[in-house]
């Protein structure tokens, strides 16, 4: 009676140990499938299987002022990179959930919540949506930045296998040198069904 019990106990413990080795050593948690990048550049439409993405403008700012209310204007820790985008879902209503910048070293930058700009874009089929994304980027990482937009979610790794717009923002070394000292202030925008022009203001002009 004791032998089967001992055998079962040893078998269970061995199975746990083997399971742990499989889980930790065989890299089962690593992303196996990368997103399919569709390269583009500023001012040109990037066609994805489910939508069109066009970066229409990119510029630096030190502050992004709130459009309404008496909120204070957030200041960038580095430099705010303001990316204006026109997005059109082409097959079905689509939530473009994942928008981020990637630098020349492959590091990803998230949009700044405190800037009160767009975080994602929700579009009806065939209806262009205009959005402004605001990223706080270290001054030494500006040159070579790329804007990436897709349906998936960066947090939950659902970018896997998704078609992703990968747009070169055309920021040169010379741009980086001048952008890092910017003192520009723009009013925040989120998403709109109408095209918008960014409004440069002084901090004194901000609604209070």
């Amino acid at each position: 009676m004791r032998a089967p019990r001992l055998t079962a106990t040893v078998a269970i413990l061995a199975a746990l140990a083997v399971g742990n080795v499989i889980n930790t050593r065989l890299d089962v948690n690593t992303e196996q499938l990368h997103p399919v990048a569709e390269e583009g550049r500023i001012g040109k439409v990037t066609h994805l299987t489910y939508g069109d993405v066009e970066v229409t403008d990119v510029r630096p700012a030190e502050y992004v002022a709130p459009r309404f209310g008496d909120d204070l204007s957030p200041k960038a820790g580095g430099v705010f990179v303001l990316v204006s985008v026109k997005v059109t879902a082409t097959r079905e209503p689509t939530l473009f959930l994942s928008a981020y910048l990637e630098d020349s070293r492959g590091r990803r930058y998230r949009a700044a919540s405190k800037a009160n700009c767009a975080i994602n874009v929700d579009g009806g089929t065939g209806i262009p949506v205009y959005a402004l994304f605001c990223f706080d980027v270290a001054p030494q990482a500006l040159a070579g930045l790329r804007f990436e937009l897709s349906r998936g979610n960066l947090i939950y790794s659902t970018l896997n296998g998704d078609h992703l717009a990968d747009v070169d923002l055309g920021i040169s070394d010379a741009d980086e040198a001048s952008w890092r000292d910017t003192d520009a202030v723009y009013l925040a925008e989120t998403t709109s069904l109408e095209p918008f022009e960014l409004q440069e203001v002084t901090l004194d002009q901000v609604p209070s």
Partner: protein
Amino acid sequence: MRGFVARRSGTQRLGAVAAVLVVLSAPFGGWRSASDAEVVPLALDQRLDLGPFYLTIDSVKQVTELPPVLEEDPTSRYLVIKTTVTNHSDRAESATLAEAAFAGDHIGILPWPDREDAQLRVYGVDDAVELPAGEFINPDVTYHLAFVLRQEPDTDLEALTLAVRGYVFQEVDPQTLDPDRWVLDEDPIAEGHVPIEVGS
């Protein structure tokens, strides 16, 4: 084998099972050292490596108001911990990692009037903007942040101590399958009393 086991006493069998369990706990982290790091005395202008962030406490001040964001409240004081925080990792990390790193003793903490909790509030020193919940700090970006708590007016500031804890990067978590996350250390990196300036 059966005879060998049968001849052992109950205590010996129990000891053998315990030894086997200790051996088998090795891949689960059972043999990992608890904490070898030495806790250093906390000081102003001391750069601490939390894991994802460098954090330096620039000043600690008790004030009655913090314009333009916090009005004077006769029933409390505000303890303002001004810091410099830099994300030195290669990915965007949640600002709450910096907030959660703080602990303290004899701080006389009070809940906020408009909230039930007594958590720290986090403001940008350069713009006075309260950092939204879920904000991320991008790689290499530095923020000057003020961590603010509401405290009892008669808090003994000489007895007040602060502690800063760091994080361990957990590539794989066999229990939750939640990989690549920062786990808060139980022991602080630095703790102690720092000079607290009292202002109006």
